[in-house]
């Protein structure tokens, strides 16, 4: 699942967008929706993100790729 972020220079999140957002409401994709919501909550909890002091232009747009395979292993 991919989430695109737009950040302020201090690391707070201006905008977060789920990129494969159509998949969220498809039947049989309940886990995907739960993961997406959980990831968004995690991002909100983590802000401001610890970001470098330099190069804002380079990292102000960021894409997070969440892979639940390892997380879900028992």
């Amino acid at each position: 699942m991919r989430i695109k972020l737009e950040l302020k220079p201090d690391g707070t999140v201006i905008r977060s967008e789920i990129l494969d957002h159509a998949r969220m409401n498809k039947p049989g994709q309940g886990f995907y929706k739960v993961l997406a919501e959980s990831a968004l909550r995690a991002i909100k909890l983590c802000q401001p993100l610890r970001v470098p002091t330099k190069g804002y232009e380079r990292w102000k747009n960021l894409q997070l790729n969440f892979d639940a395979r390892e997380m879900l292993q028992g």
Partner: protein
Amino acid sequence: MINKIKLSLVLLVIAISQSNALIEVDITRGNLDPLPIAVSPLSAEKETEDNLTKELKEENIGQKISEVVENNLKNSGLFNPLNRDAFLQKPDIAHLKPRFEDWSLIKAQALITGKVTLVNEKLRVEFRLWDVLAGKEMMALAFTTVPSNWRRVGHIITDKVYERLTGEKGYFDTRIIYVAEEGPKTKRIKKLAIMDQDGSNIKYLTLGNELVLTPRFNPTNQMVTYLSYFRNLPRVYLLDIETGIQEVVGDFPGMTFAPRFSPDGKKIIMSFAMDGNSDIYTMDLENRIVERITNHPSIDTSPSYSPDGKFICFNSDRSGYQQIYVMKSDGTSVKRISFGKGLYGTPVWSPRGDLIAFTKLHRGKFYIGVMRKDGSGERLLTENYYQEAPSWSPNGRVLIFYRETKTDSEGKGFSAKLWSIDLTGYNERMVKTESDASDPSWSSLLSN
């Protein structure tokens, strides 16, 4: 549930990234902390409150329902219900529109609010689930039932919340049938008992005159098959929970044991022993036709169907030691699947179909474990002095089993209790029962 994902790794990746393209960060790990959730007591108007108190002889039903929900969520190990004393907003106002800042201040990530009313002597309960961090409603539902069903309302709310937040069906509106035990170990009285999954509403189904063992529900949870001794002969019985009518299953010239229903509820599968050999048989409950499934001079027992009814797992000592086998439901294509050290028994197929849970005895220790249906990926979840007989929650997430403690040199200290454990091996906890207890079996979901 991913909680705080370590986003500090973002820093590292950014520091080494030289490209001018969009920076991508792969996140493959999360912290599996229980989700902090606030369960605001369900509110009720004064008149509703008074009428409910009069009818149910219980006060504060709204609050009691939310306590049922809270307790369920806590016991799942996936949620951390927050202390109600810290709540800043009143239940009735929170239900209309929560002040999310107040709830996030106490670190709640999810919030449950609700309201109870009496409509034509029926209890109407509405509830909402809120995402505190996103500041929005995730779910709103209402249902109506007889007021005496208030505990079930709590379980149904938990099932809905659990499903919405984990993506898996819940297992809270369910019951457990087990063997209630009393008295000294040498002279145990054993009765069939049934209770809600959280230990409430215990009812005893037999009087304790005969020894009973291994009760199992049928798919509609109305019938139970179990083993009972009559004139010292163990036989498989069938009991209608509502009417209390019981009957012997089949007319076997010997002992029958280890019964279970087929997934469609039409057959009972069990072991039949004669002249030192036991094989697996089925009996069709409609036409009473008995069919022999295994035919081997070894001891074949503990059969359990796959959820689609196409396969059966069982244990057999045909290799010299007790191991787990899988075969087609007609008894063909028998294949051994357990190859680890020790003895394997009581296999039971997961309702999801992918795993088989079992008891393993190795070097004097008992383990509850799971393996895939082809025998690969064996994982031992818990080790103890004596424990056995796992049974799956209907969503295939939790196992319930029983554990006995050792008797000391004076013959004291013996106990038998029910325990549950998550499939991951976490969240091991004792399930409270009035008396000692063994042989638990989990029902399917009672609603939906």
